[in-house]
């Protein structure tokens, strides 16, 4: 099998795999945020930036190539990732003490693992709204980091295209695809993939809250870097049983 080196270790890869996919499948962690194991790579958050043969590039969109030399766990790359995490925190309203995603949040877990002690930058404190119009699902736009798993899941898997990004630069924001712009006026359902893939606390199911207490959550058990295999590439999983198959698979 072909292989490339990641921080000096040989990583085997299958044809078509990206550097990030091959690394995760081999149990080697490269920090990442907008990548989702079931979706086509997107390359927008840049958390997975590595040095590949000396060039900085997002590992999630870089096709694996035999003989490639990849450096990921270096102070230079981790410093870059810390800055990206800090900017995401400073740009939105991320108030972890009251967020029910705390402990299951990828942004927070990345901050912990990278040793981000402060957002550093001037906090923007943007004025954003909450959409609690839907009976089962709510959106807190304050926490949205524009990473797009919800957009991709809603189009590629749920076939509903409920979400999209609108605007440019600092004005970019998540929009809901209905005449009123409210979630209640879409056909989104609690069982949709789009509801489950938000890495932060922006899209949440109602009446869940702190049923699993702080201290018993995913990243309380072990740091995100110790959970690489959880994000190893896997086939698309339809959110609902397929109506055309007798056994519902």
């Amino acid at each position, binding site marked *: 099998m072909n292989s490339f080196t990641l921080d000096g270790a040989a990583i085997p890869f299958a044809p078509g795999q990206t550097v990030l996919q091959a690394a995760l499948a081999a149990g080697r962690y490269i920090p990442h945020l907008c990548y989702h194991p079931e979706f086509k790579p997107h390359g927008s958050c840049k958390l997975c930036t590595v040095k590949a043969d000396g060039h900085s590039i997002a590992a999630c969109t870089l096709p694996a190539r035999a003989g490639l030399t990849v450096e990921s766990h270096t102070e230079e790359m981790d410093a870059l990732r810390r800055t990206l995490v800090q900017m995401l*925190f400073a740009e939105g*309203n*991320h*108030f*972890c*003490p*009251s*967020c029910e995603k*705390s*402990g299951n949040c990828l942004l*927070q877990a990345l*901050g*912990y*693992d990278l*040793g981000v*002690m*402060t*957002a*550093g930058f*001037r*906090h923007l*404190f*943007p*004025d*954003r709204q909450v959409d609690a119009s839907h009976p089962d699902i709510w959106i807190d736009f304050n926490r949205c980091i524009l990473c797009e798993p919800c957009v991709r899941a809603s189009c590629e898997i749920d076939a509903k295209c409920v979400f999209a990004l609108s605007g440019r630069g600092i004005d970019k924001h998540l929009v809901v695809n209905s005449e009123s712009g409210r979630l209640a006026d879409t056909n989104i359902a609690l069982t949709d993939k789009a509801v489950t893939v938000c890495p932060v606390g922006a899209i949440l199911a109602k009446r869940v809250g702190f049923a699993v207490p*702080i201290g018993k959550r995913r990243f*309380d058990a*072990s*740091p995100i870097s110790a959970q690489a295999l959880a994000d190893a590439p896997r086939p698309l999983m339809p959110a609902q049983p397929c109506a055309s198959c007798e056994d519902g698979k």
Partner: protein
Amino acid sequence: MTKLRVATTSLAGCFGCHASLLDIDERLFDLLQQVEFDRSPLTDIKHCGPCDIGLIEGGICNAENVEVLREFRRNCKLLVAFGACAVTGGLPAQRNHLDLDACLTEVYLTEPGLAHGGIPNDPELPLPLDKVHPLHEVVKVDYFLPGCPPSGDAIWQFLTDLIAGRTPRLGHGLIRYD
């Protein structure tokens, strides 16, 4: 060994971080072998003198907070943003997307069920700022200890590192933002 001098205060905070400092429990005795407290709620000294370490809980929400923060910065060799509010503005900063005048009007004058005693204007009250700021937006901050509050174990790890002259490293389970 000369003891390090440590000052602490709570600005726009709830004293929860100070309560968590007491959660180092019997390790307080070890701490007191190595430090002595200057201005702090523990000593009731009113003004900060020359210190090695200043721990500041809470963000900056009024003119007095700014004055106290600057007094600490002038006197402390190392200034630590101690807890979520000092690091990010925290809970008090949740008013930042609202207009301050509208906030005061609603709370003191128009909101049903409240006393409507008028917006307090005693000259002794420090003037509120229009926004709540984390410490680093007002003065240079040397170290940050996040957490609402940071746990006793995190505070102990942080302080023992700092006192030993090391850059504090918290690691998994001790670095928390909630």
